[in-house]
């Protein structure tokens, strides 16, 4: 199958009339790479689903263009676009059997009956749905309904696969299983896929690329590791996982190195941006990038345990620094839980943490 890219140029969608107008998608420009799985990630109301619906054709654009492959689909109705959508609640036709649901698109294309039967047989075995074909959607489990929804779309061989929060109705375990299924299916078929979710863990685990959206705009685009390790905005840092922002002051700048002070401690970081001496900055670190040390030295700083939570593989601590800032620390494989009020000495992994300008 031909792999196609999906390009959005200045896509804008507004809802409502002025003055209560909401700009759901605001000049969204991005080229979704062919054959890759790209996730649109963001909090609810950030415009990710609207963006997806603009690609599928359910929502008309106010401005901009959507190009699939080499041709614009902006003015095409959904039934003429080469996209296939898996809906949040699956949208299986309740009055049709599994077989009829999957055959729906093929019948519209007037595919001969025997060919339809063959295709559906293949797709049913591919999705481990053998023997389910005469059931009604209501007689299936959530995971099975999900697979029927995907099968119903794939059987039409769309060029672009669209997922609108497909796993949000499943329980936690099934969610993990299904996202692995979706990922391996996508890799096997190499079909361009755009996947909408608000679950950052889900996005991290299945995506080639993540597009983080906020208030209708793109905040950051990158591979999962990149997004996690180097969030480019405070919004991204806070949205993806837990992040500490430790207040610090620039002491010295040497070539591509910077020394900042936290209380009386001095920490050295690599930098690519320009900073000025005396400037207020943040040390941006994940909880697992801070660790306990037995002895105080120049690079470490002191704190007092405020709260401790045992969470199985890790222990999570809320620690008050000398200036009363509260930070979160995750200790992997904890031997014993430190108590409230205990004094501790901490160090930041300066190779993973980075310096961000004060906001």
């Amino acid at each position, binding site marked *: 199958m031909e792999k196609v890219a999906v390009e959005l140029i200045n896509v804008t969608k507004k809802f409502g*009339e*002025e003055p209560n107008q909401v700009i759901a998608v605001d000049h969204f420009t991005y080229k979704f790479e062919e054959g890759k799985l790209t996730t649109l990630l963001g909090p609810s109301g950030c415009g990710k689903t609207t963006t997806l619906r603009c690609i*599928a*054709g*359910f929502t008309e654009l106010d401005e901009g263009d959507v190009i699939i492959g080499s041709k614009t689909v902006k003015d095409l*109705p*959904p*039934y003429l*676009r080469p*996209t*296939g*959508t898996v*809906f*949040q*609640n699956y*949208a*299986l*036709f*309740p*009055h049709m059997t599994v077989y009829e649901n999957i055959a*729906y*698109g093929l019948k*519209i*294309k007037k595919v001969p009956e025997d060919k339809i039967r063959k295709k559906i047989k293949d797709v049913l075995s591919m999705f481990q749905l053998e023997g389910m074909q005469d059931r009604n959607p209501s007689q299936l489990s959530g995971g099975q309904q999900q697979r029927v929804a995907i099968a*119903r*779309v794939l059987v*039409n061989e769309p060029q672009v696969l669209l997922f609108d929060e497909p796993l949000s109705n499943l329980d936690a375990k099934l969610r993990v299983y299904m996202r692995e299924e979706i990922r391996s299916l996508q890799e096997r078929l190499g079909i361009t896929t755009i996947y909408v979710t608000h679950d950052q863990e889900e996005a991290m685990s299945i995506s080639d690329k993540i597009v983080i959206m906020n208030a209708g705009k793109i905040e950051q685009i990158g591979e999962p590791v990149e997004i996690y390790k180097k969030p480019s905005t405070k919004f991204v840092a806070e949205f993806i996982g837990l992040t500490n922002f430790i207040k610090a002051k620039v002491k010295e700048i040497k070539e591509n190195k910077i020394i900042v002070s936290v209380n009386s401690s001095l920490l050295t970081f690599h930098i690519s941006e320009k900073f000025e001496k005396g400037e207020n900055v943040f040390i941006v670190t994940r909880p697992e990038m801070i660790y306990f040390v037995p002895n105080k030295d120049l690079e470490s700083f002191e704190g007092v345990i405020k709260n401790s939570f045992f969470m199985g593989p890790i222990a999570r601590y809320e620690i008050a620094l000398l200036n009363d800032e509260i930070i979160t620390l995750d200790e992997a494989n904890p031997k014993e839980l430190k108590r409230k009020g205990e004094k501790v000495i901490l160090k930041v992994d300066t190779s993973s943490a980075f310096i961000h300008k004060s906001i």
Partner: protein
Amino acid sequence: MITKFYGKKVREIKRLLKEPVVFSLVIICFILLILFVIYPIFSVFKQSFLEEDVGFIGLKNYFTFFSNPYFRNVFYNTLLISTIATIGAIIVGTIFAYGLTRTDIPLKKIFMVTAILPMITPPFVNAFAFILLLGRVGVINIYLEKFFGFKFIIYGIHGVIISQIITTFPLAFLVTSSAFSSFNTSLEDAARDLGAGEFRVFRTITLPLITPAILAAALLIYMTNLSAFGAPALLGGGISVLAVEAVMQTLGVMDWGMGTTITIILLIPSFLLFYFQSVYKSKRSYVTVTGAPPQQEQRKTPSSIKWAIFIFLSFISAIVLTVYIVIFFGGFAKVWGVDSSFTLAHYKLVFSNTWRSIVNSLWMATMGAIGAGFIGMILAYLVARRSFIGKRFMDFFGTLPYAVPGTMMGLGFVVAFNKPPLVLTGTATIIILDYIFRRMPFGFRTGVSTLKQIDVALEEASADLGARWKTTFRRIMLPLMKPAFIAGVTFAFIRAITELTSTIFLVTPKWRVMAVDIYNFVESGSLGSAAAMSTLLMAIVIILLLILFKATGATVSMFRM
């Protein structure tokens, strides 16, 4: 801003023009609503400001109405009867609802039936049954006189009120019982847990939470009572009410100016009640219907309360069932209350003299119901799923006939269509059109609520899989709307075949119908024939309902609107 507004409208029109089927449906619906809903109401308004040979007389008829003691009295009677009957219906309905949802009284299944049955009993049949029981030759009165030396004559305000309570309490029952059963009893448990006693729980938690439902029901019931015609006409004795007076003034005295004036005076409060009801319902409903049924735990009711409720329900149920029994036997008694020997004479008479009415009723109600169902569904689809200019207008006028008293529809059709451009009076068509447009709101509203439950994603999925509008409509929407359509048509049929208030204006010797015949039989004292025909009418209705329930697995919840 303005250009933007027009830009949007222009886009809507452009989009609509791309779908000629939808576009023509919109146009057709507008024409039908204007012609058969707006134009008749407008004609009645116009007529009330006119006098023959004089022309425009302004509000003269209205001044006459309110300065004349007789008419003022009619007005007061209407308000008095409606108010008391509404309060009575709410009390009876709420006790039924409480008893059936919250207690473990025996015979619940029977009470369930008797709480619904009056909904399909035409009010005039109900009133007629009361005549057979408590009229001057009523069976109960004969025994009362024999043993106690007095009679309880049903004619008068009290009779109308009793009859109206029986007719309207099921609506209160349906609304409050659904409020009771969608009520999360853990709220009451929480109150008990916080130290509230049983009575306090009822007063501070249960009652406030179901009050909005009760008030919404009260407004609708008040509306029904205001426009009631059958019961006051048959049981009023010397007392008249607005709906009866409107018929008297037009068909009796031939004073169309006053008749239409009274109809308008009746329309305004009905309309306001309906308006408040819809506003109130949308604003104040605490009872939200979600997919999962709320936690309901049956608590043991104190046995004194339980048996008091049981006795009360039994009493009301006895009345409801007696209506059917007495009508059934009435058809076979030689002379009711005088000679109770068995005879088939009434049935022979009914089949020979009024056979045409039975046939007319059947086919005209069928046509009317199918028409109402189709137009209702199309309106529902357009309003729930499409955007076009004038959608709110369509929504409003599609629902309006529900709030319009039958008198207004009947009189409106006569006044509007007895002169060019469209002359329809004296035809079967006008009766069928009356059935269609009076009953269309039911199909419309059930259609809209069905569509609201059908996820838009289904249509999108269909389009996504390559289906055009027509395919989606045929393969997805129609099958999913079918149950609502069948129910809509069935109920439209039942309401049409038992319709008296508006058809009384439209029948002619050539086009008579069962309901009007029954009314005329009672008025002329032919109680036996009236009973025979009522029995036939009720048999048709009940058989049809049983078929519907069997075929679709539907339940009483269908009665809700």
